């Protein structure tokens, strides 16, 4: 098994997800949890709230100024890229016409364990 990050991109100007879209995202997350594929997932506040640091410079806003920004991140476990793409394809954000997802293999990770 390998781990893949699914980076969820959204149109920065499109506003919050509608209640239907939020419900669909929740259902998708529940499906991933039920199937055992989900490692972790986070939804992020809008990029209006982001602060970026580069060297000593602090700027208001996302690190890269672009039309589509990262709206959430989810890490899943899958045996290979085809399986990961299959799960990623089911992410409702792919179908909303306001963004999509990027699938990246995870190279390594450190999670705090109870010590």
């Amino acid at each position, binding site marked *: 098994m*390998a781990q893949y990050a699914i980076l969820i991109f959204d149109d920065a100007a499109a506003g919050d997800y509608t209640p239907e879209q939020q419900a669909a995202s929740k259902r998708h997350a529940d499906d991933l949890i039920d199937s055992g594929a989900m490692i972790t997932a986070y939804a992020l506040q809008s990029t209006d709230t982001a602060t970026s640091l580069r060297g000593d410079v602090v700027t208001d806003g996302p690190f890269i100024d672009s039309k589509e920004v990262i709206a959430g991140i989810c890490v899943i476990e899958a045996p290979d890229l085809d399986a990961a793409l299959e799960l990623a394809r089911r992410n409702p954000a792919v179908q909303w016409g306001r963004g999509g997802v990027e699938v990246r293999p995870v190279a390594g990770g450190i999670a705090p364990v109870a010590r």
Partner: protein
Amino acid sequence: MVARQAVADAHRHEWAFVLAATVRVARDLDLAEECVQEAYAAALSAWERDGIPGNPAAWLTTTAKRRAMDAIRRERTFRSRLPLLVEPEEAVDELAPDTLDEHDEGEAVDLEDAVPDERLRLIFTCCHPALAQEAQLALTLRLVCGLPTPDVARALLVSEQTMAARITRAKKKISAARIPYRMPRPAELPDRLTSVLGVLHLFFTAGHTAPSGPALMRTDLADRALHLARTLHALMPDEPEVRGLLALLLVTDARRATRTGAEGRLLRLQEQDRSRWDRTALAEAHELIVAGLRGGRAGRYLLQAAIASLYAQAPTYQETDWPQIVALYDRLLALWPSPVVALNRTVPLSMTQGPAVALAQVEALEQDSRLSGYQYLPAIKADLLHRLGRTDEASAAYRQARELTRNEAERAFLTARLTDRETPPA
């Protein structure tokens, strides 16, 4: 000398088979390639000394697999390797030591029948949609055809350095992202097959009309595409689009000898000597098309093949079945709404409804930004204008087409069309 020839033949015909089988053991593309290269090198001296084995592919596969196993055993002791094979159902031990007798003439194992999908795994991995198409092209030439990197670079018109980097990057992605080395599942097959057929078709068109350079054709690339299409058809005989692609390549290739005249000049379809077309290839294509069309829903390659085949079947250009060709284009366009298809449809349309109707459609297509810079649009437009007697406008369009093409044979053709404006319309 005989051994050298046998090794060269085996390189051309068996490379994909040997590599595909070795990857299963090596579980790493680089290691597998290395082992297969070594096996071919070993064959040179061994076949010289002991004679050519009854089944060269089996000899090479056995030798390459054994080298791969040795390498893995050596490596296993000090590092764990990144697994490439995601479904290693047959482990390294599949090769029992007593099958290693390379010179057993009595060995009648038909390898191609025994494991029909080995090469398919390789082809589908090289053409995985998660790889950029330029990487798919490069990997297929390198891994499936066994071309060394400098040759791949030359075939795809990029520098050797760029090509080496492209291949390395693609291989890295295959292993790091775990692109599986397996056949697509039935549900995935249509999409995955589309990538593979797209790669083969691109090779063929690149080989058939070299995008730049002096010769109209880089025949080696076209030959390889045809060979790959044949292999794919042999491996997947029931896939209608594989059949369609093979038929399309056969029909196009059947006219290869007559596409250019003296000094490499490009000849138009109506000028070509039909008696020199390869009738065997045309007949083979026809059978594939008929069987394909009978099979129900025709795909885009099959329809393209049917169109090309109808063009080729007519005893003369004038006797071409234009209405039938327009009808096939309509089906093709419904299935594949590409502006290039719409443009090509205007050619037979000009024969059924006249050049004025066709010209109106070409002018409408000129507004489509996807066709800007496409040299065949002004070329078709020029021909229609010429037939309508609007010679000045025709000349301007020929000039525009000439500026857009980088193939010298095509450019010379357009220059000639420009200079013999006085000739009566075709």
